[in-house]
């Protein structure tokens, strides 16, 4: 509670400086009001885009609530994509959602993370028709499974591929080569 009291003046100060920050502060307040402040962690504004992390249990409800909300009208799913952070224990895989309100012109980035041993995330195909292929792409690249997806199969790679190529363990060049160290070129 003390933390909240301290953070509010800081937000107001930022809001006075910049209209984009003001919008973000309003959006964050709305998010907290609708879904509770506990639902979001790691709230940041990198390059002016409000970013928050939530859990896979809550993400469907949050996106549905934002889509239906009359005030903010975050009803455009700009894009969503998978991610892989092998160093993060039990949070190896993630999905990043970019939402956009075309009436208020405000964007929101939501993230969820979950263990690679249990790569399951809720499907958004019941809310957004465009989520269909985006989720197929995330499945294809990262092996994320979306229960309830109408047609979860590979989309860009061949059907009989037996791995998910965008995961970080698959180096782009042949990992068995020993004549070429990887010190200087990329990672």
């Amino acid at each position, binding site marked *: 509670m003390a933390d909240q009291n301290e953070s509010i003046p800081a937000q107001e100060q930022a809001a006075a400086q910049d209209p984009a920050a003001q919008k973000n502060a309003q959006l964050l307040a709305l998010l907290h009001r609708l879904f509770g402040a506990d639902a979001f962690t790691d709230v940041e504004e990198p390059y002016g885009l409000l970013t928050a992390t939530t859990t896979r249990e809550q993400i469907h409800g949050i996106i549905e609530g934002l889509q239906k909300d009359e005030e903010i009208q975050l009803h455009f799913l700009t894009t969503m994509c998978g991610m892989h952070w092998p160093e993060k224990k039990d949070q190896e895989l993630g999905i990043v959602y970019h939402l956009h309100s075309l009436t208020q012109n405000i964007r929101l980035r939501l993230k969820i993370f979950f263990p690679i041993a249990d790569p399951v995330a809720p499907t958004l195909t019941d809310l957004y028709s*465009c989520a269909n292929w985006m989720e197929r792409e995330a499945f294809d690249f990262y092996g994320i499974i979306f229960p309830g997806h*109408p047609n979860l199969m590979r989309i860009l790679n061949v059907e009989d591929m037996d791995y998910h190529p965008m995961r970080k363990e698959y180096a782009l060049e042949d990992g068995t080569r020993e004549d070429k160290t990887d010190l200087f070129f990329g*990672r």
Partner: protein
Amino acid sequence: MAVNDTLESTHKIIESAREQQPNLNPLAPTVNDFNQELTTLNLGPTHPATHGIFQNILQMDGERIISGVPTIGYIHRAFEKIAERRPFYQITTLTDRMNYCSSPINNFGWHMTVEKLLGVEVPKRAQYIRVIMMELARITDHLICNGILGVDTGAFTGFLYLMDEREKVYEIYEELCGARLTTNMGRVGGMERDLSDVAIAKLRAWLKSFPAVMREFEAMFNRNRIFMDRIVDVGAISAERALNYGFTGPNLRAAGVDYDVRVMNPYSSYQDFDFEIPVGTKGDTYDRFMVRNEEIWQSLRIINQALENLPQGPYHADAPHFYLPPKQAVYQNMEALIYHFKIVMGEIDAPVGEVYHSVEGGNGELGFYLVSDGGRTPYRLHFRRPCFIYYQAYTEMVVGQTLSDAIVTLSSMNVIAGELDA
């Protein structure tokens, strides 16, 4: 025996397809009627009318489409994976090969994303040159799309006239970057060379000659009774469905939503220019055609304004850590050599952060989601490819229509295989 077996499985496919897309088409036959003769038609992958390598397995009842299953990925080149091993300046060539009808827009969209990450401020002159090039690219993109639509309805003349104009635009590209199709134009931090006198002369000549050709094209098509009969009310989609399907660009605007990234989130000084956003009402093929035609005129307006008000000054930012120095300077100048070496060898780290930047591409919002962990290459780079997202709606748009309608719908959606599959 076998015929009935086939029919049974066919009906299963139809049933499941209808479950996914209920109440769309009153003309589709009922599932129980075993006297229906259905045909499976492979439209693509290499069909001349699909203008790209993608397949649609269509279930046909005579000329009518009952259901369709699109298959994509035939030219998937794993750009997102490749980008994870390439330094920022080498990713530009990947973006060329996405929407290759308007490569400069992709190039500059990528450069602007990196500039946003690095916090590089690009001088006004470079921004204006970028605007000119991006609008030229938009015009060529729309010319191809609308010209092809003419070809698909049986009018080859317009397409040939417009190809001639595209050729002239490509000559302007050549003056600026040496390339024509996959342009690799500009650099992180600005342009790699200034707009030369020759380029400006060519541009002015083209700006003078093109409107007449465009007017001729419009006179031939816009109110042509045969053309209108073929495309009015074909492949329509409502604004609500279009938004739900993530439509952007001319396809969304044809459905009546005035979303344009250039206006909503201006980049590269688009706020300096006076132009209008044309919108349609029905979201059908004719509206898409007309929106593109009008956008060509608006792009011309922007180019004229940018050329008249082209500021003087440097054509690239003073960002030696990221802007590759000119080759001549590298051979003669110590600092340039050092920076050249550091940039090429990846000695310079980018800030840690994540950035999303989008530009109005030829066919919609082209977004770049870049996650940097401070290394030389992106940790993760995701391209928001407009085609990939809106092409999903194709089946819904053509079910119940005839095969020839499906062809013109596909052309008017401007699906570019390179961008679809990335």
